[in-house]
């Protein structure tokens, strides 16, 4: 394992009796691009705010770039480039003024500052709006300005809260490419509730639901975790599909057989059982020839639902608040408004 850049140990944040974050533990190593997933109000923003020392955890601790969030918040902040949710900027300033100000806040000055401004403006392609007021910019450009300020001090770690939300597909592609480009040389954590992002942009996904880390794995592992729903079976032209339906229906473990429009037969299994051998045998005995057998897996959305709604995965918190389900969403209001 390479160098650990972020080390979160049992982070818990309580707001009164509510737990926004419940014993979250995870590590992020140098060079990883980690996607934070989870429903609105799950604790993603809370985790990020703790890591940037904007709020303190009720329990637990974290180390960022070797600095403890309790003992050395300034060290922590120096190592992080941060883009908060919904990109708050001083909209009355010019892009140029803003980047200069943020650079100065990062301790840059003189020629070094201007060199860095020039560099991030190139990186985030802000040349065309450099002399404009931020309030005149489109959402996509504002997002770039936010990224530019996060990059200005060449931080080893970037924390981006919902960097892709509210962007149109083109802007999204641009920002995503930018993140991937930046991620080649840095450690990045970004939150999203767009599940497709995991496969596209991340080297690892951490899923948080009801304040708990319910999943922490690579996209490949997530892929494998998708439960088996059944098989799409294709027969040769001489085999009757109607007959097959009754034959496969008799195989132990098969829950449902239906004919699909594309000419194949959908065989659903219960409990993810592997019934390929039985299907082949049954087909052979009935004089049918299978020429193709494709496993059907649940989508990433199903897993997400399973992970975030499964009471056993979410633990007692969930059980306790089942009666008033929506209260989980309230604790992080800013998460909520945004994507609808």
């Amino acid at each position, binding site marked *: 394992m390479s160098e650990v850049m972020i080390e979160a140990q049992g982070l818990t944040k309580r*707001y009164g009796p509510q737990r926004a974050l419940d014993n979250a533990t995870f590590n992020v190593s140098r060079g990883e691009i980690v996607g934070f997933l989870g429903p609105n109000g799950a604790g993603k923003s809370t985790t990020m*705010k703790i890591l*940037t*020392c*904007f*709020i*303190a955890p009720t329990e637990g601790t974290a180390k960022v770039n070797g600095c403890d969030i309790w003992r050395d918040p*300034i*060290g922590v*902040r*120096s190592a*992080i480039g*941060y883009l*908060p*949710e*919904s990109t*708050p*900027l*001083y909209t*009355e*300033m010019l892009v140029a*003024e803003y980047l200069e*100000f*943020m650079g*100065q*806040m*990062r*301790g840059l000055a003189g020629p070094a500052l201007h060199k860095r401004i020039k560099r991030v403006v190139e990186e985030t392609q802000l040349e065309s709006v450099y002399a404009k007021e931020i309030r005149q910019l489109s959402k996509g450009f504002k997002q770039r300005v936010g990224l530019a*300020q996060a990059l200005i001090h060449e931080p080893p770690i970037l924390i981006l809260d919902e960097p892709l939300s509210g962007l149109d597909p083109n802007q999204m592609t641009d920002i995503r490419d930018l993140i991937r480009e930046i991620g080649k040389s840095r450690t990045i954590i970004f939150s999203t509730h767009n599940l497709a992002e995991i496969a596209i942009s991340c080297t690892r996904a951490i899923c948080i639901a009801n304040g708990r880390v319910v999943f922490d794995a690579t996209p490949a592992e997530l892929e494998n975790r998708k439960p088996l729903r059944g098989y799409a079976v294709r027969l040769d032209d001489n085999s009757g599909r109607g007959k097959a339906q009754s034959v496969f229906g008799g195989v132990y473990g098969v829950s449902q057989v239906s004919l699909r429009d594309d000419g194949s037969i959908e065989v659903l299994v219960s409990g993810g059982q592997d019934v390929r051998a039985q299907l082949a045998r049954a087909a052979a005995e009935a004089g049918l020839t299978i020429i193709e057998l494709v496993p059907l897996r649940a989508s990433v959305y199903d897993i997400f639902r399973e992970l975030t709604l499964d009471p056993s995965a979410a633990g007692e918190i969930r059980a306790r608040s089942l009666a008033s389900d929506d209260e989980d969403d309230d604790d992080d209001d800013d998460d909520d408004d945004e994507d609808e």
Partner: protein
Amino acid sequence: MPTNFQNTLTIASRQFRGYFNSPVAYIVVCLVLAILGPLFWEPFFLMGHASVRQMFSFLGPLLAVAAPAMSMGLIAEERRSGTLELLLAMPVRESEVILGKYLASLGLLAVLLATTIFYPLSVAQLGNLDWGPVFTGYLGIFLEGAALLAIGIAASSVTENQLIAFFVSLTIGAALAVLFGWFIPFMPTGAVTDVAQALSFEQHLESMTHGVVDTRDVIYFLSVSSLALMLAFRALESRRWS
């Protein structure tokens, strides 16, 4: 609290420019001048001697309204818009943020007071103006304004609503700067009156407008300012634990 003064200055300079990027600074300065004009000149000719003491006694109550307007947005607006979260993700201390904002508001106060220099200059044309009390008067009114702004920034730190910040600091500021002074003559002698007298900004400003700088008055204004700034700092820091 150790402070990196460079950070404080960076924040102060952005905020100071921010004042003039928004209408607040212009409105405050113009309103103060517009109200001060008639208030000042009317009794001036009746009194018949060259002094600007009147101006300072009007500036006190005017600042009690102007200072909350100047300070209401300092923290509250950043909190509302979310920029506070980004500002505090910089390697800065809360104290540096508060001090920087405070310095910017002192800068605006200085600009505001500088625009009133026109009054003593005009008076000096009309008669034989003694500049000593003018300078000490400006010192006094600056200290009073500084205390009011510190109260304002404390109010601005506890809410994300500028209007609430405005009314909280207006209430406290008006009590200290104006009301105590009004009521003291009608109050019976006793402990309460003594306390009101000790707290009243007017009482502490009085001797400075006569040209006498009493260390106790200076220390009083500085104490109020420090106390309020400390509160602002604590309020900003408390977000971490809420």
